[in-house]
């Protein structure tokens, strides 16, 4: 197997056995990223020199015998995560030239585990979008069909893993921004419980919802990434101080004939209604049959308030965004307009020039719902309905261990199909948003393809802190299926020699 086809677990083992060096893997990775850049545009920054220096250091650590668990494994970070000394753009003109002065917590933790940072991935501007069409640096293409969107907002990180450019990457999920692109590109994306991964150094969008998490091709690799990323960080006041967990502990247990015996899978009626694409519905049904064959049972449940998660989200997330993004005023960092008449005008023009249309819309929505006379009617109301959604989840998890359904109502769509109608775009996240509002963990894993060859994602949701269980459920499915092993046509194949 070529190194780029290998998983994180496989590469880490090969590096530990000294069958290959990190410099070899990293060089090949950088070459593939550069070759795929024109067709996919998955990266905003490629750091060849920095990556090779880290690879040499990883090889030296291996030789000394003090290497971290993921030493030498190349990964990419979403460009919303601060990387010391490296441009961190957030997909925006506002931060196009911003060189981060420090590392985000999860970046720091993955460095400590020995990973090699090869570059920063493209994304929807300030993580606001579901198609990667709002990036200042151009759209990312879906490796399965480059006429289709990769999903968003972490579209570059998802496309890079799907195209076998890197074995793993980071994303952030505020309303589905890890799970939705994972579904649309046929890979795994995990949104952990809110508070498990520190938000320090994650450029804030909606602070009560923003959650860093991993992308990889297997659930096992997501568990290995999460082992490195999770942990308490006093610099984030919402980071949880809990004993460290080994997220591979369930996966590591030997499999029996019925490895999921006793598992109760809740099927929310609301996840199987009108609006669900027929091919997606068929793939989910087939996946459920596999889970039953593995010993699980299914139970019908109801989440009546979940249908309100999109309107709740589009009050709460813009409200928090309007507050968070007020820091971009052209004074301390970011874009400053060249021409202005006084301080207020400098703010207004710098922000008008620095932000794209979707970011401005959300700031304006947020400003409105927080403004005098509207706060109770919108913001407070949305927070109360948020509680009703959390109550639905609490009742559901009394009846089942995990919930399953499609990650998205449909598959990857063509560029431009939804960009003129924000509400149509927002409805893409109808199954994922409740996970953010409640703060519960969920993973999207590949579970089939449409006749047109586009991937279909299955979402597995669990109660708070059930990551190890969710990852194990996903892993057992992947032991019994090969959807995760399917690869798109190679977007980074070497050019033919002339």
């Amino acid at each position, binding site marked *: 197997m070529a190194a780029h086809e290998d998983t994180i677990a496989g590469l880490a083992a090969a590096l530990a056995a000294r069958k290959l060096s990190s410099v070899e893997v990293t060089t090949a990775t950088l070459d593939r990223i550069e070759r795929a850049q024109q067709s996919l545009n998955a990266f905003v920054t490629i750091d060849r020199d920095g990556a090779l220096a880290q690879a040499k250091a990883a090889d030296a650590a291996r030789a000394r015998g003090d290497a971290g668990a993921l030493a030498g494994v190349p990964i990419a970070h979403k460009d919303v995560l601060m990387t010391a000394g490296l441009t961190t753009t957030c997909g925006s003109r506002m931060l196009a030239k911003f060189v981060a002065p420090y590392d985000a917590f999860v970046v720091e933790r993955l460095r400590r585990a020995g990973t090699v940072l090869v570059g920063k991935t493209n994304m929807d501007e300030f993580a606001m979008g579901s198609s990667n069409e709002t990036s200042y640096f151009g759209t990312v293409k879906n490796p399965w069909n480059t006429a289709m969107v990769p999903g968003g907002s972490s579209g570059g990180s998802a496309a890079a893993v799907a195209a076998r450019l890197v074995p793993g990457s980071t994303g952030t999920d505020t309303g589905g921004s890890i799970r939705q692109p994972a579904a649309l590109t046929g890979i795994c994306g995990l949104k952990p419980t809110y508070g498990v991964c520190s938000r320090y150094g994650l450029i804030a969008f909606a602070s009560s919802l923003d959650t860093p998490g991993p992308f990889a091709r297997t659930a096992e690799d997501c568990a290995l990434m999460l082992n490195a990323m999770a942990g308490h960080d006093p610099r984030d006041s919402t980071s949880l101080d809990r004993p460290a967990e080994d997220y591979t502990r369930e996966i590591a247990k030997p499999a029996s004939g019925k490895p999921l015996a006793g598992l109760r899978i809740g099927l929310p009626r609301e996840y199987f209604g009108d609006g669900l694409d027929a091919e997606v519905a068929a793939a989910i049904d087939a996946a459920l049959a596999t889970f039953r064959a593995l010993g699980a049972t299914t139970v019908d449940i109801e989440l009546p308030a979940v249908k309100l998660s999109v309107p709740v989200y589009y009050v709460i997330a813009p409200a928090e965004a309007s507050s968070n993004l007020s820091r971009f005023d052209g004074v301390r960092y970011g874009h400053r307009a060249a021409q202005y008449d006084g301080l207020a005008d400098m703010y207004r023009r710098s922000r008008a020039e620095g932000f794209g249309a979707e970011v401005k819309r959300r700031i304006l929505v947020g400003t409105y719902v927080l403004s005098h006379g509207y706060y109770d009617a919108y913001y407070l109301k949305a927070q109360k309905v948020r509680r009703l959604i959390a109550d639905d989840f609490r009742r559901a998890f009394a009846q089942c261990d995990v919930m399953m359904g499609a990650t998205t109502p449909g598959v990857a769509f063509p560029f431009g199909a939804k960009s003129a109608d*924000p509400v149509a775009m927002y409805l893409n996240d109808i199954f994922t948003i409740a996970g953010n*509002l409640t703060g519960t963990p969920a993973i999207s894993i590949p579970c089939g393809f449409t006749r047109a060859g586009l991937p279909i994602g299955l979402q597995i949701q669990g109660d708070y802190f059930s990551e190890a269980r969710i990852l194990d459920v996903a892993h057992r499915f992947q032991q019994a299926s090969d959807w995760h092993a399917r690869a798109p046509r190679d977007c980074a194949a070497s050019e033919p020699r002339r």
Partner: protein
Amino acid sequence: MSLTLQDIERIAWLARIEIDAREAADVHAKLTSIFTMIDALDAIDTSGIEPMSHAQDMTTPLRDDRVTESDRRADFQRVAPATEDGLYLVPRVIE
């Protein structure tokens, strides 16, 4: 609820984002459709429901009151649009 163009101009002023007349019309149309979707919340009875501001309903943890940060002014000002003698430069606000 129906938003007017004047509302859009007022919000844009509050948000310190300059928008021209053509942009305002587009923003008005799109915000109107967003708020039509949001207005579904009106029909929900939330009497007696405690607002949920946070996933974990946790209280803010306190740390010891001691200096933990080092002086990194030069690092942080390196990314600023305009500085002088360690100060951020902005247009004159007091004549």
